């Protein structure tokens, strides 16, 4: 049998690849811990999620799992830090619809040292509408159309606070103004505590935040969730979504990008890790999400669902593209 040149190359590549695969070091190496990076300050929900993963990953991966806080610049410092470490799968980062590799390159004034393509999703483990608009109970803004009307009557006078800069809320504000033809006064906060305090002091008219935490507070009201629709697992069915205002404000909810996204949470690693490490980590995440004990533990703040790395990649790609377009439009 005569071999073509392509077959010879393929055979050569295969021969080279086989020992390479065989030469992958065992994962994890005995005694070497896995580190979950918490890229926001201690005490926040990101660290809490990492703490809840810790014992389950311990068992699933078969080594000690540590949590290391590397915070700053809205989570970007954590990404830069992990990028400076080897791409071996020993360092895992959280990401969500509010922060992640699909957001930082577009919003950071100084480009990060890595590219969007440098990160590999392990999967998404929670997905629910969470970002919402919150006002004081006695605010004259009762509904989303009230906000739009008030902003049109008094351009630049309605003050909205968000956490930032450098998070998806920046883009939500851009979209809000562009899509509805309004101008608002946007003010950044570095913590949810002071953001909420300034709502109480009437410094802010509206806050955009992870709203579910305020759903049962008597002093405030969530007038809309920034989502296209409620998911089945959403606990507060009476809350409105962006789909509820379409008729009154004459728009199609499907045209919304960041104002109509759900709030996913996932994990990523630096791309380029060995295959055995990738498979081990993906399996560990999948098994953990399917574990009823873990689901029970996170029930108060996460809404478990498992999306494969491929599906997660598609969601990340969509967000990456959408934000890039939005920022490009905003700069025009």
């Amino acid at each position, binding site marked *: 049998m005569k071999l073509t040149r392509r077959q010879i190359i393929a055979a050569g590549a295969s021969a080279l690849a086989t020992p390479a695969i065989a030469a992958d070091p065992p994962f994890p*190496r005995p*005694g*070497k811990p896995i*580190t979950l990076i918490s890229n926001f*300050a*201690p*005490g*926040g*929900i990101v*660290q*809490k999620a990492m*703490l809840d993963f*810790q*014992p389950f990953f311990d068992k699933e991966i078969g080594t*000690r799992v*540590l*949590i*290391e*806080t*590397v*915070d*700053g*610049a809205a989570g*970007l*410092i954590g990404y*830069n*830090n992990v990028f*400076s470490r080897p791409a071996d799968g020993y360092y895992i980062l959280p990401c969500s619809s509010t922060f992640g590799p699909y957001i930082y390159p577009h*919003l950071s*004034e*100084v480009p990060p*040292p890595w590219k969007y393509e440098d990160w590999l999703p392990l999967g998404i483990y929670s997905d629910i509408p969470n970002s919402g608009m919150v006002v004081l109970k006695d605010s004259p803004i009762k509904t989303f159309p009230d906000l739009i009307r008030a902003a049109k009557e008094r351009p630049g006078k309605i*003050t909205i606070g968000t956490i*930032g*800069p*450098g998070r998806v809320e920046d883009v939500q504000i851009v979209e809000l103004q562009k899509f509805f033809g309004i101008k608002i*006064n946007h*003010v*950044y*906060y*570095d*913590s949810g*505590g*002071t953001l*909420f*305090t*300034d709502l*109480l*002091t*009437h*410094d*802010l008219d509206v806050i955009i935040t992870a709203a579910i*935490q305020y759903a*049962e*507070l*008597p*002093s405030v009201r969530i007038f809309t969730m920034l989502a296209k629709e409620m998911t089945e697992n959403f606990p507060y069915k009476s809350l409105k979504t962006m789909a509820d205002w379409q008729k009154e404000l004459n728009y199609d909810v499907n045209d919304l990008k960041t104002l109509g996204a759900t709030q996913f949470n996932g994990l990523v690693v630096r791309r380029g890790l060995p295959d055995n490490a990738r498979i081990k980590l993906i399996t560990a995440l999948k098994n953990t999400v399917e574990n009823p004990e873990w689901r029970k533990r996170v029930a*108060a*703040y996460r809404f478990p669902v498992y999306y494969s790395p491929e599906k997660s990649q598609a969601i990340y790609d969509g967000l990456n593209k959408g934000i890039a377009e939005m920022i490009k439009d905003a700069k025009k």
Partner: protein
Amino acid sequence: MGIDLSVVMEGMTHAITLQNLLWLAVGATLGLVAGTLPGLGSGSMMAILLPVVVTLPVDTMLISLAGIYAANIYADSTTGILYNIPGHAAGIPASMEGYRLNVAGRLEEAFSAQVGGALFGATVGFLMLIVLVPSLIYFVKFFGSAERALLSVWALVFISSGAVTRDNPVQSFLSVGAGLALALIGQQPNVGTFRFTLGLEGLWDGLKVVVLVLGLFAIPQLVSMIKLSQALSTGPAATGGIRFLSLYRSIGRTLWDGRHVVTRTSLVGSAIGMIPGIGPSTAAWVGYSIARAKTRRPEKFGEGNPDGVLGPESAGNACEVGTIVPLLALGIPGSAAAAVMLGALNMVGIYPGPSMYAQYGAEVWTVMFGIGLSGLMFTILAFPFIRGAQFLGRAPMSVLVAAIGTLCMMGAYMQTSDVFGIEAMLAIGVLTMLGMRIGLKPAPVLIGFVLGPGIEKELIRAYQIRGFARFLEPTSLAVLAIIVLTLGIAIYRGIQRRRTEPEQPAETSRRDLWLAGCGLVVATCLVVFSIPYLFLAKLWVWFVATGFIAIPSLLLIRSSWSALHRPHPASHVQEATSWKLVQQRGVLFAGLLGFLALIMPIGFVLASAIFVFALALYFERKPMQAVISGVAVAGFIWVMKTGFGFYLPTGVLDL
């Protein structure tokens, strides 16, 4: 809102069960450790313990975290009093006077003031807690961005106008200006502009406060420990100048003598704690300033005055407890530790805020009683803890220097998760030592650094919200009036002091000219390099460059220039620096740089062993003793790293 006594009793009953008291002791012990180790802190320690305690009953979990929370701030100044190396920024003011008392052979007085002040402050904070939690919602409504900014401005004016150092306010302002300038580095929080990062990623988030504390205080102290080795090895820190009964007996006397100070500082500390975002460091400095103003022994201030320990300790501890008030009443965490507490409450399905008090009254009272009992717990644990810290003092000086150096390296690394933290610490250490030679004061530098970012952030945020009109609302105007009054008093006192103080020597004037010259260079660089930034990103930069650096520099030049041309008293004879001392300092720095170079290739633990071994060997220890010292320090680091799950580089050997 009425208080249901049955709920209060239920909360108290939960707090005083044997199991809960034991966990409280565990928490308080860990809090003491966290407060002592640079770079750890109560927030991190609580986060580390959280996975363990979350499996316990809710009341036990809350009480163990309360133990860490309350005990941590007390321990901040223990090593500061013993070795002039405080654990965290909030421990610095108490360490300043405490260390002077120690050097003067009055260690017991220093610790009785520390323990007594902490207990008194925590108790006042606890009383405020139980009174105010049910009604705080009305109080917080008056403190928006503008009021928070102006309160921080008041703290800055109050502290920096000569209250911290005995030197003139101009020099003090200039040092504060240096701290404010260092705090400009990193991302501007209101608009996101990266400022003065020099193209280094490690500076994107600015300098970490612990790295600065270590650079400003610990590194110069390590160097001076070589020089002071003889004095320290025979001093009270090493020889054990305190006794159990005597310490506790003297607490009452110290508190009674300082009652005018401690009552004020505790109340002010509690009030500061209740305002989110200000924190115990500010409270401790304000406490120090109040102590200085109200002490009955003003002539002893700066030379070792127990009131200088009582004031900051009581204010800091009252503040730390005070931060729990907005947390429990409104769900607003005022510090990292409070944020972890919030996370812990959420983990067990309790969401702080006004509705929590109605739904989980007993748990709220359990936390509050736990914090109250923590004060007693850390008071009981204080003696063995101090003795433990003193035990370090009996180690050979070379080993002590190497061990403290290792802990500093660990603290700096853990703050940044990168060797950049260590590089920054060493650079700041060298600059501080050079700066001190021309009159720069580390304490005001730190004050500027701690307060600056909060002031800028809140001032610009208030301006963004409603422009200058936001500062003309009644509560803002009230705070503004207090600022003007404070500034007026400071200026009046400054003028009075100038009339009575003797002429400064020519050497001091020349030194001031150098300081002012450096100030003008820094101010020019700040203004020039900030020109391309957005308007809101350079507004504060220009204010710092002119108001806190250029103007004080020009005033200093004016006064020093005229002093140089007047007849002046003889200058102090400068202490000669021996060649051996220079050589020893050089070896210490070479050792630290070698340690830094070895961390990534061979791991932190092994690098620390080599560093301690080499340093001990150089300082005339026998080889076997040097080996034992190296193994002991490296073993301690390994136990800490493994036991608490810290991430430190492991190197090729994965150690």
